């Protein structure tokens, strides 16, 4: 069995490996994380802001924040669902702890997310709407959001080894999330029952609202302090369920791969 230092070393080496084989293989590669969101921001700013701007303050920025956060969540969960199958050989032939391989897999999407959300913070700063509390709040919220993605992803990854169609089902859910998460619209624009469902049954909603509110200094209706607690509670619950399932069934999962 590996010692803590050996596990830490393996995690660091694997993170470096994933970084080197991703589009981040050079320092300039990080620019790709800016290029995509910048393009979305430019398009939304110059094309839509004139129309929607009257109804939604800082529409381009809230839209960009929402897209970035939701993309991270969807991609991370997809990565995790594929994790067991794509790492079968390593899992059944080495003593490397599965959770180390798993965390290393999340490293590049996480780095991409942090880079992209930093872009939102920079834009907010130049627009003059970023407050110190908003900045610190965003940084605090990121680990909770990662826990949510990790929890949901781990649970579905374990389930995915027992039922092969989970990946396809997740693809459909991920597409649906775009429409049932307040990214293109704001909560007051939809009916009360839809608002209730989207706020309480979609665990991503409190995070999207919180990121948007923190970055734009609370220019988001339907956001209040309770939303932050709701987000933290969802993250803790999802992580607890996902991690417990993984720890309880991880070994059996490797056997059925």
């Amino acid at each position, binding site marked *: 069995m590996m010692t803590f230092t*050996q596990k830490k*070393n393996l995690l660091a*080496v694997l993170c470096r*490996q994933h970084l080197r*084989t991703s589009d981040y293989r050079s320092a300039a590669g990080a620019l790709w994380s800016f290029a995509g969101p910048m393009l979305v921001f430019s398009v939304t700013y110059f094309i839509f802001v004139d129309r929607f701007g009257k109804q939604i303050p800082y529409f381009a920025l809230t839209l960009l924040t929402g897209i970035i956060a939701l993309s991270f969540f969807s991609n991370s969960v997809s990565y995790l669902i594929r994790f067991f199958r794509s790492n079968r*050989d390593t899992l059944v*032939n*080495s*003593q490397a702890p599965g959770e180390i391989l798993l965390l290393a897999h999340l490293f590049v999407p996480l780095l991409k997310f942090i880079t992209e959300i930093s872009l939102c913070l920079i834009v907010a700063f130049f627009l003059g709407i970023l407050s110190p509390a908003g900045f610190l709040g965003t940084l605090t919220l990121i680990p909770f959001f990662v826990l949510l993605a990790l929890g949901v992803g781990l649970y579905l990854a374990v389930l995915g080894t027992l039922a092969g169609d989970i990946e396809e089902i997740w693809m459909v859910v991920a597409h649906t999330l775009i429409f049932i998460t307040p990214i293109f619209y704001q909560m007051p624009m939809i009916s009360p029952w839809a608002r209730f469902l989207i706020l309480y049954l979609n665990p991503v909603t409190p995070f999207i609202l919180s990121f948007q509110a923190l970055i734009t200094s609370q220019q988001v209706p339907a956001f209040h302090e309770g939303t932050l607690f709701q987000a933290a509670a969802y993250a803790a619950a999802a992580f607890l369920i996902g991690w417990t399932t993984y720890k309880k069934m991880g070994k059996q999962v490797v056997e*059925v791969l």
Partner: protein
Amino acid sequence: MSAPVLEVKNLCKNFHIYQQQKTLFRLGKSFLKGFPFKRNLLALNDVSFSVKAGEKIALIGRNGAGKTTLLRILSGIYQPTSGSVRSTADIQTLFNFGVGFNPYLSVLDNIYVLGAFQGLLVSEVKAVLEEIVEFSELGDFLYMQAKDLSSGQKQKLLFSVFIKNKSDFLLFDESISVADQAFQIKSQNWFKQMMSSSKTLILSSHSHAFLKEHCPRTLWLEKGVLRADGPSAGIIKDYSDFCIAEEARGAGIKSPG
């Protein structure tokens, strides 16, 4: 000989074999109605033995006899269904040279990744880097992408890192012959050194001449049952006779006359 470093008692391992394509619907149906979704396969049945420090043990048996399953349980990758495995040693295993190998990284980066999978810290790999490069004969290719190596060169790389493993208890599964003849002599010499060292080794291989020469003790697994445990010369001969008899019996059944 000293006290046992490994004690296996009444070890049983059951695998679930899925009888049809795994889907969420079938999983649910199986759960709710007790639908026979999977059947059990007894891979190991009541296996007991102990290993003392410094012993060199051959593990033999036909394909599907349970050798790899036993080694995976001993190394902690699989969990026993019943029975116990108690070990006071740090067991390291080599099932597959390729674990951790990334074809899109350079040869040098691969050395660090492969080392990390063997529990070697970056600083430890750095300390023995020259020896690894010299042993693998890949000094001219360090910065080349590993996918461009020939299969023989790849095996040299993987084997050269593996032999830097510091564990006192090593398990090998079908991994004695590697690369070209010149390198095979090198690797055979390494194995001979291991055989005369104080390390504890369990080797699973079909290379009976090698096992007979170097391992004083043999475990023979047949259909998951430990059929014999004792001096290698007699057991390997019995096993060879058994295989010949089984083949003749199989040929007799198939023969129309």
